[in-house]
C-alpha cells in the first residue's frame, strides 16, 4: 500500500513532460496520436498504460494548461468509446475512434425516454430492419450535448416480442441524418442548455452501424452506464466534476467564514468525506485500469458522491446568506483552476438537484448497492419477463 502519487522526478513523468516541451500547444489530434487521450486503452488508441502513467499523463495535460479532451468529448472518450474495442467491428473502430479521440467528432448518448425514467428498459423507440438498413422511430430525452454532437450512441428496440431487456440493440448514428430533430431543454438553472430532446422519425441507418449483435443492447448500455458512474465517483460538486471540498475549504478560509462555528464543523465534515471519496475513487481507478471490469464500486461511489456534491454547493451557497440568492458566479472565491462545466458554485448549486437523478437516481443506486454489493434480494420487475408488446398493456397494480 502506497498512497503517494507519482513524484515530480518520476522518469515516466519526465518523459511525458519532455514531449510537451517539444509540443507546447498540441492539438487534440496530436494528443490522440501520441496515445495521451486514452493512455489506458491498448495501442494503437492508447499506450496500454498502467495507473501511474495514466495519472501522470492526465496531470501533465493539466499542467500544460490544456483542457482535457475528456472534458470536451466525455461520452466517446469515457463512457462509450471503449465499447467499440469489445463489441465493435474493426471497420467501426477505424471509422469512429480516430475522429472521436481527436475531438473532431463529438458523441452523445441517446438512451433515456420520456416513458422510461429509472425504468430505462421500458424504452419504446423502435429500429425495424429493412434490407441492409434499420428504420428508427421514437423519442429520446436528457441527451447531454446532443445539440453539439456529430455521433449519437442510440439504443432502440429491434424485437418488440422479446422481454423488455432483451430485444434491444445499440447503433452509432449520424446526428445529421434526415429525421433526427434535436430540441434543447432549458433546466432550472436557466444557464445554457446541457440537455436535449431528440425526436427520431423514419431515420434510416445502415446495418453496419449496429454495435455488437442484435439483442446485445441492454448489456452494452449497462456496461457504459457503469463506466459513467465510475467516472462520477470523484468528489466534485456535480457528478465528480467541478470544485471539491478542498476548494470549498480554501474559499471559506480565505473569506474568514470558516470562523463561524457551525460552518466550520460542517465544512470539516465535508472535507473529510471528500478526502475519503478521493481515496475510494483512486482505488477504483487502480482496479479499473488494472483490467478489472467496472463493477459495483461505481454504484457505491456515485451513491456517496452525489449527495456529497449537493452538500458542498449547499454550504457554499448558505455561507453567502441572502446574497447567495442573487444570480452571481462569484460565490466564495475559487482557487484558479480548470473546473470544467461546473466552474462556479452558483451553477453547481442550482444544478445540484439533478446530481441524484442523472445516470441512476439515488434510489436506483441504493438498490444496486444493496443487491450487487450486499447480496440482498433483488427487486422483482413484474414486467421484465413478459414480451414487451404485451407488458405495455399490463395495468399497473397498486402495489407489489
Amino acid at each position, binding site marked *: 500500500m502506497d498512497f503517494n502519487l507519482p513524484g515530480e522526478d518520476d522518469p515516466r513523468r519526465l518523459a511525458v513532460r519532455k514531449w510537451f516541451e517539444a509540443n507546447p500547444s498540441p492539438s487534440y489530434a496530436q494528443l490522440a496520436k501520441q496515445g495521451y487521450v486514452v493512455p489506458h486503452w491498448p495501442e494503437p488508441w492508447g499506450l496500454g498504460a498502467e495507473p501511474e502513467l495514466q495519472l501522470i499523463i492526465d496531470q501533465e495535460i493539466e499542467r500544460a494548461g490544456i483542457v482535457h479532451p475528456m472534458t470536451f468529448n466525455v461520452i466517446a472518450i469515457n463512457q462509450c468509446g471503449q465499447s467499440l474495442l469489445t463489441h465493435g467491428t474493426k471497420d467501426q473502430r477505424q471509422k469512429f475512434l480516430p475522429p472521436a479521440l481527436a475531438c473532431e467528432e463529438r458523441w452523445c448518448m441517446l438512451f433515456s425516454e420520456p416513458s422510461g425514467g429509472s*425504468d430505462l428498459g421500458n424504452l419504446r423507440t423502435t429500429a425495424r430492419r429493412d434490407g441492409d438498413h434499420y428504420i428508427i422511430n421514437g423519442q429520446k*430525452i436528457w441527451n447531454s450535448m446532443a445539440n453539439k454532437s456529430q455521433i449519437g450512441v442510440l439504443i432502440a428496440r429491434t424485437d418488440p416480442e422479446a422481454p423488455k431487456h432483451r430485444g434491444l440493440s445499440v447503433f452509432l448514428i449520424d446526428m445529421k441524418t434526415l429525421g433526427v430533430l434535436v430540441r434543447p431543454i432549458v433546466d432550472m438553472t436557466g444557464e445554457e442548455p446541457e440537455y436535449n430532446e431528440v425526436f427520431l422519425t423514419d431515420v434510416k441507418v445502415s446495418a453496419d452501424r449496429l454495435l455488437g449483435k442484435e439483442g446485445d443492447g441492454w448489456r452494452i448500455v449497462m456496461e457504459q452506464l457503469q463506466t459513467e458512474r465510475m467516472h462520477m465517483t470523484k468528489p466534485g460538486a456535480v457528478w465528480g466534476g467541478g470544485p471539491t471540498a478542498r476548494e470549498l475549504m480554501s474559499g471559506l478560509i480565505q473569506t474568514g467564514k470558516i470562523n463561524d462555528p457551525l460552518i466550520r464543523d460542517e465544512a470539516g465534515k465535508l472535507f473529510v468525506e471528500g478526502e475519503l471519496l478521493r481515496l475510494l475513487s483512486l482505488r477504483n481507478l487502480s482496479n479499473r485500469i488494472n483490467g478489472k471490469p467496472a463493477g459495483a464500486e461505481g454504484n457505491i461511489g456515485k451513491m456517496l458522491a452525489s449527495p456529497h456534491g449537493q452538500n458542498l454547493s449547499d454550504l457554499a451557497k448558505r455561507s453567502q446568506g441572502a446574497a447567495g440568492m442573487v444570480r452571481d458566479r462569484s460565490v466564495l472565491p475559487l482557487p484558479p483552476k480548470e473546473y470544467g462545466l461546473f466552474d462556479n458554485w452558483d451553477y453547481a448549486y442550482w444544478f445540484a438537484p439533478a446530481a441524484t437523478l442523472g445516470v441512476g437516481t439515488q434510489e436506483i443506486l441504493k438498490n444496486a448497492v444493496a443487491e450487487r454489493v450486499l447480496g440482498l434480494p433483488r427487486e422483482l420487475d413484474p414486467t421484465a419477463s413478459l414480451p414487451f408488446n404485451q407488458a405495455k398493456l399490463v395495468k399497473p397494480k397498486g402495489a407489489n
Partner: protein
Amino acid sequence: MDFSLNEEHEALRDNARAFLSKEAELSKLLVPGATVAQAGYDGMWNKMVELGWPGIVVPEAYGGLGMTYLDLAMVMGEIGRSLAAAPLFGTLAGAWAVEKAGSEDQKKLLLGEVAAGRLRLALAVTCANGTADGAHSDVKAVQRDGRWVVSGRNAFVVDADAADKIVVLARTKDKGQFFLVDRGDRNVTVDVLEWRDITRQVCAVSYNNVSAEPLSQSDDDTWPWIRDRLYLVLAAESAGGIQKVLADTVEYAKERVAFGKPIGAFQAIKHQLAELAGLDQCATAGVHFAAWALGEGDKRASLAAAMAQSYASAAYRDVTYRNIQVFGAIGFTWEMKNHLYYKRARSNAELLGAPRHQRDQVVRLLEKTPELLSA
C-alpha cells in the same frame, strides 16, 4: 382552548384558494429566460385590492378590515401555495412600520391609502452584508435646513421597484430610525436584482440625498415588532407552499409508473413522502400558533414567530427538494413549476436570515425569559 381552525378561517382560506387558482398564472414564468419582469405584479395587485387584502390587518380605525393575524395567515398561505406575485409583502412590511412607528397623522393618512389599495410600500432595512437588525444600516440620515435627507444603499428590498413609497431604516447621529421616501424621487435608484426566486421582486435601493419624512415613534422595539410579523408572513407562505408541493408530489407518485407499478408503491418513495407529511403538519401548526400569539399579544409571540419561520423555511426546502427528486429529471426543467417552489423555499430561508439565526433568537428568548419554558 381550541386547537382547530374555526369555520370562518376555513371559509376565508377556501375562498382565497378558489380565487387564486383562477387568477394566479405561472405560465409566463415557465418560459426559458423568464425573469421577475414577467411575473405580472400589477394585474394581480389590482385583483387583490378588490378583495381588500392590502388592508386585511390594517385596523378599522385607519380604514382597514381589522381582521386577525390568523386571517392574514390564511390568505398568505394561499399566496404561498399559488406563488401569486404581487407587491403585498412589501406593502405589509411598510404598513407595519407605519403602524408601529408612525405618528397618528401618518397612520391616518398612509394606512388608509394602503387599505384602499392606492399606496404600495416597501421596507428597506438590510445592509449589504445581509444583516437586518434594526440598529445597523448602510443608510445615513442627516438634518439639513430642518429637513431630513438620507443617503446610502440597501440590499434585498422586497417590492421596492413596485412601491410608491419606501420605508427606510437610516442611522441618525445616535440611533436607527425609520423614514419615508418617495420611490419616484429622482435621487432614488432601484435596481431589480437577478433574484433566483422570480416570483418575488427583490431590489437594491440607493439614496443620494433624498428628502425623507421621519416616522417619529421609531424606537428599539420597532424592528423586532415588524420582523416578527414578517416571519409570520414568510412562514405562512412556506407552509402553504409545503401543502401544495406535497399534494403535487403525492399525486405524481400515484400516477407515474415504473417497473410495472406506480412509483408511490415503492417504499423508498412512500417513506420519503411520509416524512414530508410530518413536516407539513408541524409547519402548519407552528404558523397557526404564531398567528394566534401575535394577534393576542401573547408573551410567547416573538418565540412563536421565530419558531414558525425557522421550522417552516427549513421544511419547505426539504419538501421542494424531495419534490424534484420524486418527479425526476422532468421536475428539474424550467418548463415545470417545481423549480419555482424550490427557489421560493430556498430564498424564504434567507430573506430574513437563515433558520439557524431564528433558532438562535429562540434560545436567546428562553435564556432571557425562562418562564417561557413552562408556558
